[in-house]
């Protein structure tokens, strides 16, 4: 019989296995997160509308990523865009949770050979075919191989711990308490942030004889409340939809774990055959670990039961405890939707209405920095800017989808190009106004700076309302008016620039920089509005021609 390995070497191997496992999991998640382009996200969005497809996709994503956080983030984004709703998203998150059971079942299967092949083949491919077409596939496969190898190392060397007299002396000195094992499960899940990792560790320690089957079960049950604690405390900074999803995960996982714990003690105290009774009676070899894994399956199934049984009131309750944030609400497009890309004319009309809506928000930026604060601001400038950026991104993608419709008529192609041009101008407008607001924000108005600020705000507000009139009415008169007032900004702005920089204004260096910057942004705004009026004129002419 070979001598037992020294304890430090065994610990080193176990730590190496754990490290490989963590790095592999991280790699799988990172690579999967890279996949979600718009099409992938839209596919998920469509899937949420079909319960069976949504459940299947949630399960598959859970199996691949071994976490529900990726699905939660994608779904929160889709809900913010109005593509999915909380009632549609919750079952998908629950099924992503359920997908975690697959890895747990694989722990005691001879899959390490498969893992070694994955590491070898994908590693060689990545070395020699850096820009090959399968690179995107090989990177997550390589990471998956690391996960499997990590599990193998942990399993083999945890088994060796039982041959080490020092290790066994240590384990024997630790009280063998089921409740302690449960608390270990709670703490480990909260810290490690991966349910399957903790369950895998519990199974490996159980398979090595360090944990009893009962203790392995308790570690497993502890992951439920551990998930809840992690969701509630470590993501307490989340707001709105994302918070709703994490609270939901906390409720179903915490609830399922506590029910399993209650059943365990009910059996202990009341001698009712509930859980442990069935452990040796399940088919297969008890030492294989699949029996304990079956209890994880039961716990995750309980999560699904909780999900579907609370679906009627859960969304309303979640909305009550963490209402959608103003930014999430403002980031939701009001007019465009995936369905609207099917009809070119309708799609284009809705995109134009969305654009008008964005310009209509812009005076709101100025309200936030008005010294008289005459009108109540719609939202903080950061909120307005971030939500406008979100809608602009949506609009860009929406117009690209319209391009994919196949533009048969020249007039349709021109109309689309014009809308894309207006989108670009409005994006420029938003950016410039944001820069001006940022410049003035938090500065006590005084002297020449106050004069510039007040005049720029009032002038800008007027220009924006004139643009809104032109966009809303589409009348030649309003469009011409916009064109006239934005025709020659250079001369006026130059004069102002020279005037404000004269010595009598007694500005310090930073104030001069601010004035120059604000006037430059203002010039860009006037230019963009001039281009917008030209674009609207072209639209009027094109409409008249058709």
């Amino acid at each position, binding site marked *: 019989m070979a001598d037992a390995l020294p304890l430090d070497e065994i610990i080193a191997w176990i730590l190496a296995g754990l490290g490989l496992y963590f790095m592999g999991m991280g790699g799988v998640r990172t690579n999967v997160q890279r996949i979600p382009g718009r099409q992938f996200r839209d596919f998920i969005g469509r899937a949420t509308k079909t319960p069976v497809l949504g459940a299947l996709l949630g399960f598959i994503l859970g199996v691949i990523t071994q976490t529900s956080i990726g699905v939660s983030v994608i779904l929160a984004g889709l809900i913010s865009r109005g593509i999915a709703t909380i009632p549609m998203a919750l079952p998908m998150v629950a099924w992503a949770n359920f997908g975690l059971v697959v890895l747990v079942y694989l722990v005691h299967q001879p899959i390490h050979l498969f893992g070694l092949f994955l590491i070898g083949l994908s590693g060689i491919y990545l070395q020699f075919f850096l820009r090959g077409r399968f690179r995107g596939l090989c990177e997550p496969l390589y990471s998956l191989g690391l996960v499997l190898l990590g599990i193998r190392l942990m399993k083999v060397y945890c088994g060796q711990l039982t041959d080490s007299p020092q290790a066994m002396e240590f384990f024997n000195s630790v009280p063998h308490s089921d409740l302690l094992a449960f608390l270990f499960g709670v703490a480990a899940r909260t810290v490690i942030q991966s349910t399957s990792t903790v369950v895998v560790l519990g199974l490996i320690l159980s398979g090595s004889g360090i944990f009893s089957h009962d203790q392995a079960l308790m570690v497993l049950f502890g992951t439920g409340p551990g998930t809840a604690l992690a969701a509630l405390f470590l993501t307490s900074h989340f707001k709105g939809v994302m918070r709703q999803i994490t609270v939901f995960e906390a409720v179903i996982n915490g609830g399922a774990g506590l029910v399993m714990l209650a059943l365990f003690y009910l059996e202990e105290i009341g001698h009712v055959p509930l859980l442990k009774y069935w452990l040796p009676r399940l088919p297969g070899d008890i030492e294989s670990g699949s029996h304990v894994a079956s209890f994880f399956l039961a716990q995750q199934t309980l999560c699904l039961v909780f999900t579907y049984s609370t679906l009627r009131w859960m969304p309303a309750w979640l909305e009550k405890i963490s209402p959608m944030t103003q930014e999430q609400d403002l980031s939701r497009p009001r007019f465009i939707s995936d369905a609207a890309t099917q009809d070119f004319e309708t799609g284009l009309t809705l995109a134009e209405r969305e654009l008008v809506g964005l310009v209509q928000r812009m005076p709101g930026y100025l309200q936030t920095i008005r010294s008289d604060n*005459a*009108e109540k601001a719609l939202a903080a400038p950061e909120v307005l800017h971030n939500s406008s950026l979100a809608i602009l991104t949506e609009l860009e993608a929406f117009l690209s989808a319209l391009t994919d419709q196949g533009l048969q008529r020249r007039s349709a192609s021109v109309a689309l190009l014009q809308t894309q041009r207006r989108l670009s101008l409005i994006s420029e407008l938003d950016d410039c106004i944001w820069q001006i607001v940022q410049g003035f924000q938090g500065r006590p108005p005084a002297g020449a700076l106050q*004069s510039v600020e007040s*005049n*720029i*705000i*009032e*002038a*800008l*507000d*007027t*220009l924006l*309302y*004139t643009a809104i009139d032109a966009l809303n009415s589409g009348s030649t*008169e309003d469009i011409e*008016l916009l064109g*006239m*007032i*934005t*025709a*020659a*900004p250079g001369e*006026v*702005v130059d004069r*102002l620039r020279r005037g404000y920089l004269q010595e009598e204004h007694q500005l310090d260096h930073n104030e001069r920089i601010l004035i120059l910057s604000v006037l430059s942004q*203002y010039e860009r705004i*006037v230019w963009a509005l001039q281009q917008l009026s030209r674009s609207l004129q072209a639209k009027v002419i094109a409409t008249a021609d058709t």
Partner: protein
Amino acid sequence: MEIICVQENGITLIALSGRLDNVTSPSALTELIAHVDHPQPRLMMDASPLEYLSSAGLRTLLGVTKKVRAGGGKIAIFGMSDSIREIIEISGFHSIIPCFPSAASAREALGV
């Protein structure tokens, strides 16, 4: 906000005093429009007593200008303070509403 209107040789001379802002603009617009609600109006606005002009005030002036133009008339504004002239110039409204330094030059522009 006070609006004083005088008819003078076929010209409507309106003196604007006080603050033309988002509080006073709605009523001011109604009153000003009433004074030019006839064919070919000729309107001179004396802005020398005007203390403050906000964006809402600028839109009021724009509304009046549109009305005058629609009636085939003419409009001129004079006597603005430096600050009010600056707002009108930055916003580009001087290209729509002819601005003059004095009543005489405004009267001349209206062809009186």
